[in-house]
């Protein structure tokens, strides 16, 4: 019978396919995607002029940590949702926890600021551009992550696409910190999160089309 021949040929040429391939390949997409985003920052947006001073300050690292944690949360979700029985709960909890901690810090600082200066603290210099730059920088990682994940076995394609978007957004926002000179947690909370949310939404939108098995 034909099916038996198929089984024979599949078994005859078997190569090892350990489960850790899933996380390895997703990590690879982050490395390549982050490199692409870095090139874009270097040659398109430009590094922030005070970078050498900023790396000595707390805010630079808070931005990097927040963005990187969102990326790790996205990774955790994507690594689970790339499998047919996966649940994204762990990754989502991490993202919500990071958002919660930053909200407490950001709102506390907002309270301690004189009302007249609050708008400036919230909007900074670049609130209009920030979310869209993050979205743009996320595109290489998102494209690679979707291409990688569709060779795995996602069964909830919208959710898996959203996970890839969260992952790509976190990677992009981490790299974007090299360009962005903003210094307030409430700015980070609002506009960085919005950029990552845009990338997540783009992933969710593309997922059902991009992740279909073929």
């Amino acid at each position, binding site marked *: 019978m034909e099916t038996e021949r198929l089984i024979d040929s*599949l078994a*005859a040429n078997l190569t*090892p396919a350990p489960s850790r391939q899933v996380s390895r390949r997703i990590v690879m997409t982050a490395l390549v995607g982050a490199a692409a985003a870095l090139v874009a920052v270097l040659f398109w947006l430009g590094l922030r002029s005070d970078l050498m001073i900023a790396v000595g300050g707390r805010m630079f690292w808070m931005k990097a940590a927040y963005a990187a944690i969102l990326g790790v949360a996205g990774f955790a979700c994507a690594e689970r949702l*790339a499998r*047919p029985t996966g649940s994204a709960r762990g990754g989502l909890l991490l993202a919500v926890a990071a958002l919660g901690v930053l909200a407490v810090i950001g709102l506390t600082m907002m309270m301690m600021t004189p009302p007249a200066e609050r708008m400036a603290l919230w909007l900074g210099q670049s609130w209009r551009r920030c979310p869209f730059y993050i979205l743009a920088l996320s595109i290489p990682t998102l494209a690679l992550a979707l291409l990688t994940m569709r060779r795995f076995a996602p069964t909830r394609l919208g959710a898996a696409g959203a996970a890839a978007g969260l992952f790509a957004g976190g990677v992009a926002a981490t790299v974007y910190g090299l360009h962005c000179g903003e210094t307030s947690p409430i700015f980070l909370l609002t506009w960085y999160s919005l950029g990552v949310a845009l990338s997540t939404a783009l992933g969710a939108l593309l997922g059902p089309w991009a992740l279909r*098995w073929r």
Partner: protein
Amino acid sequence: MVFHEVEQRLKALMLRAQAGDGQAWREVLTLLNARLTPYFRRRLGPEHAAEVEDLVQETLLAVHSRRMTYDATQPFTAWAHAVARYKLIDHWRRRRVRRHVPLDDVADTLWIDADHEGEVAADLDRLLGGLPSKQEQLVRGVKIEGLSLAEAGERFGMTEGAAKVSLHRALKALMAKVGSRGD
């Protein structure tokens, strides 16, 4: 074989296959093939019987090329069932058939019904066969197909109230029958 033994055996084979053991993989695929054929045949129905083998082969190919997504902390049977279910839905989508597959489809359907469906159906026939034919159809309609009382009543030409009374009588008779046999 009891369900958890099937799970243990397949999981052990799967882990060997993921490490590159072709013989273990042949066994996994052969066992899957035996399950998938009745699984798809039942779900595609007699009018699409010709598509069953294609769908089985496509599913085996998907299981093969996506085997790294099986994670040893999860049950293998649930993983394989989820792949089969995805291929089934995809098949319907390609053929532009809109059909509802419940999201909470029991994870191990692929494993359980192939083993027991024959026995269960025979038991059910025996039990329901003792009822008057209208009552039997009513029980099948409401309790097995999942019709509402109103729909069932309409099908058998009675009011909803009459269907309810008749169903109640039928279930009471069945209970009596099962109870007396259990003693």
